[in-house]
């Protein structure tokens, strides 16, 4: 069914509300239905939807349009001229906000009523795709499942060209950066290049996934997603508030360890939400609740718990629950009451510090109140709030095993998150992992799966991955392995000679080539240290001061990071902001050029790299291969040699000239790019 939610390409917005799917009338056009859905959702649902039913009319399902409101049916199938909906918008009587629909929008409605209101064979109305239960879609072809789905979409879009497989060396660099955040060393390159066996690539994947560097790399991704922040004292008006905890790094180390062990995201979620409430919890489950410690704000409990609920919603459900704090959500089916019901799962928890572990623990149960208009000074005594998960329409049978209202609340919530009936969590997390391999999600905005979100580019692929991933014990390593062994992942990122594809899909949404992205701040800094042979392999431990970042060989994720404390070199390359970072920015600004050109840190690594290889007779081509992960073209090698000679002449110092060559390559666009 979901396969009928066709991609909207570069057109302006997304499929929104519940729309009929499954219609197989001969003239039916799903993309038209989608466009109409987005018009209705953007312009009409506010007053004619779940939250407000002006004139007795709802427009969020076709059934409701047929049923109509006080003035009668809103649409008459096949008869646009007889349809009130069309008459009202065409006469600019609706919408009432004073901005009429454009002629084009009216024409779409007209066409849709003319074509689309054919009888539906099953009479079923679908809910928004993300709230549909996950079902395992049939594979459209044999071979790698990802490629089967990707090829299907490419065929539908009539895109015939495919970029060839990436050069082996470049592919190994891509893979290594993706899985470990570090480029291969010369030895690692040689190992793959010399291995003629058919499964040499798969073995490289396994080696990298087993590397201790993997946990650090993906730990940092989840630190973004779950808002890792060093502690800080912030002065709000007169009072000093402690945010996060000085021991928060224990949670960071937990993440690294759990990912390295491939513990399964379902277990990790339960441990992070309720590691203190499980009898059979592993030793580090208390540290896992650092997830909740992070939001600590010692003078503003309301803001603390609002953050916990809002960001849990965005990180795991892809829903911006925070909107429902003051009022029913304007678009998504989340009422204000449901926001406070979710909050009540967290209401009893406090932060307790034992030794050097800060963790969540339940204090006495305090009642949760609905705050009128979100104002904590205005509790509504008429509404009783009990722990309850949102009743996402129609499908989630979630609420029958709910907790006794005393303790174990967070455990119950976590179990609901990872239960088979939850339609969202696996989809949202799979999308985050995909985003970090391909530079873009199957769903464009990774924290927005609500009814106003754009539909996935590959809905069936998303569901296939989500279902299979759960079957494989929510194993991230299984998911990585599945993704990186696909042909789509292994394609070259070059579009040379593929003009027809560039024209049809300039944004590379359909993966006819590998979409490149800029390396994250940490990857750039850590790669420099690694190539210089200077990287400190120590895993975990207390946080490093930001002032030491230029001198310390520790990996970048170990430095303090808070609202005010940032490592300047990382900051200029868009390091995660601690308030929220569901997706990194990828800016390209002159300040980055100056950081790479003029930073003493970069120069020190360039000199170290040059000195390690200084005696080599084929210095120039070897440096291309090491720094950029590919052989130099003859013209490039010639240019490099000329530059080396020129700088030697100018500076009268061969070692310094070699450092310049390496430094120049470190400033190459390909060095900061995951190709």
């Amino acid at each position, binding site marked *: 069914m979901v396969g009928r939610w066709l991609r909207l390409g*570069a057109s302006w917005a997304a499929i929104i509300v519940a729309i009929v799917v499954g219609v197989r009338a001969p003239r039916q056009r799903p993309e038209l239905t989608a466009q109409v859905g987005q018009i209705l959702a953007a312009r009409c649902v506010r007053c004619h939807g779940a*939250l407000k039913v002006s004139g007795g009319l709802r427009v969020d399902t076709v059934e409701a349009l047929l049923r109509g409101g006080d003035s009668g049916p809103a649409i008459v199938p096949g008869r646009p001229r007889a349809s009130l909906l069309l008459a009202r918008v065409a006469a600019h009587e609706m919408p009432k*906000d004073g901005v009429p629909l454009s002629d084009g929008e009216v024409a779409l409605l007209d066409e849709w009523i003319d074509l689309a209101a054919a009888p539906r064979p099953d009479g079923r109305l679908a809910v928004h795709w993300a709230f549909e239960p996950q079902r395992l879609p049939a594979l459209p072809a044999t071979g790698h499942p990802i490629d089967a789905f990707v090829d299907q979409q490419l065929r539908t879009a009539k895109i015939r060209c495919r970029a060839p497989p990436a050069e082996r060396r470049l592919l190994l660099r891509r893979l290594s950066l993706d899985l470990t955040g570090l480029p291969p060393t010369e030895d690692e390159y040689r190992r793959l290049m010399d291995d003629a066996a058919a499964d040499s690539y798969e073995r490289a994947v396994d080696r990298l996934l087993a590397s201790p560097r993997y946990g650090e790399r993906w730990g940092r991704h989840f630190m973004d997603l779950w808002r890792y922040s060093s502690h800080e004292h912030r002065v709000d008006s007169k009072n000093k508030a402690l945010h996060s905890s000085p021991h928060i790094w224990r949670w960071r180390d937990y993440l690294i360890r759990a990912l390295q062990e491939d513990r399964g995201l379902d277990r990790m979620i339960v441990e992070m939400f309720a590691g203190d409430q499980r009898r059979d919890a592993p030793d580090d489950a208390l540290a896992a609740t650092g997830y909740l410690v992070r939001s600590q704000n010692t003078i503003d409990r309301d803001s603390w718990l609002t953050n916990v609920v809002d960001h849990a919603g965005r990180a795991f459900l892809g829903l911006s629950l925070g909107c429902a704090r003051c009022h029913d959500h304007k678009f998504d089916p989340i009422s204000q009451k449901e926001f406070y019901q979710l909050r009540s799962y967290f209401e009893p928890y406090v932060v307790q510090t034992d030794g050097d572990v800060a963790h969540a623990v339940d204090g006495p149960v305090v009642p949760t109140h609905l705050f009128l208009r979100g104002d904590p000074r205005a509790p509504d005594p008429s509404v009783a709030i009990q722990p309850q998960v949102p009743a996402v329409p129609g499908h989630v049978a979630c609420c029958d095993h709910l907790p006794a209202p005393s303790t174990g609340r967070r455990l119950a919530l976590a179990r609901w998150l990872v239960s088979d009936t939850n339609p969202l969590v696996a989809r949202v997390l799979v999308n985050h992992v995909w985003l970090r391999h391909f530079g873009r999600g199957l769903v464009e905005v990774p924290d927005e799966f609500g009814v106003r979100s754009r539909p996935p580019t590959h809905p069936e692929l998303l569901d296939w991955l989500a279902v299979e991933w759960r079957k494989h014990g929510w194993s991230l390593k299984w998911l990585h392995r599945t993704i990186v062994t696909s042909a789509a992942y292994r394609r070259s990122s070059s579009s040379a000679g593929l003009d027809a594809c560039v024209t049809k899909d300039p944004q590379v949404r359909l993966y006819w080539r590998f979409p490149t992205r*800029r390396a994250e701040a940490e990857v750039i800094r850590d790669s420099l240290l690694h190539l210089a042979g200077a990287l400190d392999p120590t895993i975990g431990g207390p946080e490093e001061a930001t002032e030491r970042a230029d001198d310390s060989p520790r990996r970048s994720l170990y430095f303090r990071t808070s609202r005010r404390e940032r490592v300047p070199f990382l900051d200029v390359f868009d390091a995660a902001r601690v308030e929220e970072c569901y997706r990194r920015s990828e800016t390209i600004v002159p300040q980055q050029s100056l950081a790479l050109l003029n930073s003493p840190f970069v120069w020190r690594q360039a000199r170290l790299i040059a000195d390690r290889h200084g005696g080599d007779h084929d210095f120039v081509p070897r440096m291309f291969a090491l720094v950029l992960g590919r052989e130099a073209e003859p013209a490039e090698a010639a240019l*490099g040699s000329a530059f080396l000679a020129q700088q030697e002449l*100018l500076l009268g110092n061969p070692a310094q000239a070699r450092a310049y060559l390496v430094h120049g390559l470190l400033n190459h666009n390909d060095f900061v790019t995951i190709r």
Partner: protein
Amino acid sequence: MKRRHFLGDMGLGFTGLALHDLLAAGGARAAARADSVIWLFMMGGVSHVEGFDPKPALNRHAGKRINELGASTLSEDRLTLQEVGPQLHHETKILPLQVGFGRRGAAGVEVSDWWPEVGGCVDDLAIVRSMYTTDTEHSAVFQFHTGRSQRDAPQPSLGAWVSYGLGSRNENLPRFVVMGTPPSSHQGGLGSHQALYLGPSHDGVAINPDPRAVLPFRADAVHPSPEAQRRELDFIRRLDQMAGVRYPDDQALKARIRAYEIGYGMQSALPDAVDLGKETPETQRLYGLDRPVTRPFGQQCLVARRLVEKGVRFVQLYHGGNPDNDSGDWDSHEKLREKHAAMTAQVDRPIAGLLKDLKRRGMLDRTLVAWVTEFGRTPNVDARTPCGPPDENVRTGRDHHIYGFSIWLAGAGIKKGVVHGATDELGFHAVEHRHYVTDVHATVLHLLGLEPQRLGYPGQQRLALDRGRVIREILA
């Protein structure tokens, strides 16, 4: 123009390619009245009824509820819209004006007493009192800059279109510069100065105008000589251009090459632009640099003038951003009197100083100054404060208001001393010459010589609403 012809130029020094030449062939360029724009954005929502559209009726009706005033004032239909979300506008009492106002300038335009200095420049302004927008939350900041609600498919920001559409006047500086604390995610995030499909080389470049922080990585710290660095830059540029043959559709590569060229130039141009010691003490005072309260924004305004002087096309200043208040400091749900008094005190003198300085240098003829905010504020008390026993301390704020608010433009190609459009008696609805935010975009683009109806990007569509229409009534 076919996309690949443009990008196929990559290996051949395409970075010098001025897009406006190509656009000119397509007819998107007309006679320009302005060369540059200074865009002053007040984040949080500035009260129009206590700003550039004073409403004495609020004093007359103070204490009444809007729906007690009778149908003559507001249409019932429109009131019902307010029930959505937090904005239960008509449930609370009308708040009287929190400040006085008077007629200013030869034109005798009413401006509130919170804007004495900008009010003194009113004979140079074209005030538009009939703006509306559709996003009731602070993501209306994003909407004002891109023309679209944050939840729709994002569009490039206005400054990015300007950067894309116009050639550079100075290759040592970015075309599009941003200062001030940028919008929080609640305000729609960095999209307000991003270029999206126009390519990252058209993103606004954020700078810190503090001379000690403007260039954290300096060449003389590492390079033995300028010549050594220059040669290295040449090496890097040529390598990147060679890579352009492999990756002909790579926008990031193109942007990277440009970032190195500008970065190199910025090493000398930027410290010079922010060196306000080169300005006379009189000029510094004009912008309020002599007073702590006006100094931060005054510094940004003066740097903006210096950047425009050096050829920057679009300088965007965010005022009111605050890492600890993601709504923006102009947001005044409570204690509007104190908050607006404090905020206007920060910007009134710097903005007036900027206008006077541009004028006396003859720059105002070719520089467009826009003063903008994401929405206005309600005529009545903010409904979010709980009903109950009157508490004068909390019930003196106004809520967000999207149905009518004010902005102004001044300078190149703009009429002087005019008021355009009007709201109703309460300042509730824009009732005359209503303008959506993209009408401002269209006006700015038009004055720069870009035809908003024709400006586009291969493979991307802008819809009718995006393009807006030029506000011809305020053009000189």
